């Protein structure tokens, strides 16, 4: 997996680069928009991380030019501007995800992983399976060990998202954005309550827990 980082702040860039390399990614770094665009178009990267305010070429403009060349590499926008409008602008320019500085590295890692998988994810898959957990996206049927599990609509969507990203850390913010479809700051760990409810339905009574809490990061569904 190759990741391109376009970020003018050396320390932040180094921090991201080192973190990604520790997780097995190959990461390249450009400290201005023009180099960033050239490298992004030359190399074949799985994900490009772009800061918004860049010398040479503004981050959004970089994404726009990339998209004009029909380069559809997923882009994660990093920004100190954390406003809703800015996110809307970023996504409109062709970005795929938006992360506000300051951020926890696990949050960035989870998003990069989700984006790098996006390409080879097939939305036509109708059945998801993990160990003895089974989910049918057409009938919305959920079974574990052959036993039918009744889920509320939101619980179903939560489980579906976790199963689609199984084996990978999913942060609370990602869940809010993808399962609830709202970008907001919860004051309390409201997501934990939903997770523990879901856990009560899919893990309770079974020997092997599938839904795991990753400390300081989020959750992961894994066999």
């Amino acid at each position: 997996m190759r990741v391109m980082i376009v970020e003018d702040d050396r320390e932040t860039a180094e921090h991201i680069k080192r973190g990604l390399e520790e997780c097995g990614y190959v990461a390249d770094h450009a400290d201005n928009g023009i180099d960033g665009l050239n490298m992004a178009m030359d190399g074949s990267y799985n994900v490009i991380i772009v800061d918004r305010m860049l010398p040479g070429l503004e981050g959004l403009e970089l994404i726009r030019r990339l998209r004009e060349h029909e380069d559809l590499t997923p882009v994660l926008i990093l920004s100190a501007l954390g406003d809703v409008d800015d996110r809307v602008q970023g996504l409109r320019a062709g970005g795929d995800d938006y992360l506000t500085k300051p951020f926890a590295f696990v949050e960035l890692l989870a998003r990069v992983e989700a984006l790098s998988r996006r390409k080879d994810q097939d939305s036509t898959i109708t059945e998801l399976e993990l160990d003895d957990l089974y989910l049918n996206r057409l009938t919305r049927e959920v079974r574990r060990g052959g036993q039918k599990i009744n889920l509320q609509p939101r619980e179903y969507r939560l489980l579906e998202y976790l199963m689609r990203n199984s084996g990978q850390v999913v942060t609370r913010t990602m869940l809010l954005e993808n399962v609830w479809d709202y970008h907001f700051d919860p004051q309390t760990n409201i997501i934990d309550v939903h997770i523990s409810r879901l856990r009560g339905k899919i893990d309770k009574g079974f020997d092997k827990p599938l839904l795991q809490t990753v400390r300081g990061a989020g959750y992961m569904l894994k066999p």
Partner: protein
Amino acid sequence: MARPLLRSSTFKLTLLYISLFSTSVIILFAFIYWSTLSYMTEQADEALNLEIRGLKERYKDAGLNGLTQLIRDRINTQPPSGSTIYLLTSFRFDSIVGNLDRWPRGPEDAEGFIDFVLEDSRFEPRPVIHVRARAFNLDGGFRLLVGRGIEDLFIARKRIIWTLGWGLGIMVLLGLIGSILMSRGMLRRIDQITATSEQIVSGDLGRRVPTRGTGDDFDRLSEHLNRMLDQIESLLDSVRRISDNIAHDLKTPLTRLRNRLESMSHSGADFHHHLDPAIREADGLLSTFNALLRIARIENDARKEGFSSIRLEEVVADVVELYEPLAEEKLQTLTLEQRHTPPINGDRDLVFQAVANILDNAVKYTPENGIIQVSIKTGGKRVRVTVTDNGPGIPDALHEKVVQRFFRTDSSRNQSGNGLGLSMVAAVCKLHGAQLRFEELDPGLSVHMDFMLPVVEKQSKFADSASESDGISTNSSTNYANTKPSAAH
């Protein structure tokens, strides 16, 4: 004082006004002068001509003797103060009869009119008499002169000039006095404003421009300025309070973080159990900063780019659904009462955030087994979202304070939270033009958010549909259609 007075715009204006008015008065008087005098001259000439015609007829009927007799009669019968002058001479200008010693020297015009001056020998000192006369040649070489005193004309002329002069003088004088007084008054008011602003510049923010209470232009200006100053002062106050609060509220977690790091550096290899709390502390600080920045951005942002037509009932239902498990854990009853409501114009994420913050507080502060009711209904031009709980509530006196950044009631101090939740709600409401109101219940609290329904803009809809239907419109007409709706906003 003299320099600012002469330079004051009011004074200059009144001077300009005085000179314009004087010019028009002079023109008016000149017209009166000219028309009065020419009328009087005409009258005098007419009388002369009449007299001459009578004398000519007598000469034709009765010859030189008859004419001489008539002239003598006329001179004798006219009153002492009479002013008709007769002189009949031979062709050599030898006097035959008349009350004038000799032929006057004045120039004669084409019709024979002569203007000359006489000295009246009957009085001492001899008054000067202005005479207008007409000379006439009779058959036989005789010359006849008939004249009349035209003192009236001169008196009238003098009067008119006198009136004009005095009138103009008084007018200019009064105008000057008025303009000086007016400029002084204006200058005084302006000086007051200047003095106040100077005091404010030098740091006395509590100063206000004095008003007279007459509601005149200056009072209105002063009131506006004062309102602006009030706003600035309260903004500065809030900035000061916020920075105080930030310093105070961030010092505690930073101290804790520092202590943790310190004990980590002492504990050698066994520092791992300090790591997580330290990261949590830093995360908490970051999220506080993020929330502060976010509130500031929302408060300053008038662009409303994230705005679209949203269904409040859907957003509210999503919030309730999100918080349901939490309420259930606390054995609270959380109900949602909703009616179908028309869509409003708003930012979906921000409205969600605001409603979530209110509901979060309700769940947090309402004790176990409490009741929380969320309702959404339409009334008039508003959609009202209400969150009611039977928790401890917020005393009336604190309703204004709870939306300030970092403000926490005594009962909330031991709860988690950063003291920014309701500030965020207030900022979101302000951005949406929604009214936020707290209502103290016994026991409990109702929080109302009144969103205004969008005004139906028929004009802009019309312009939109026009630009859509007219697919092959030229560039200029497309621009026109595009500018119209934005002008309507």
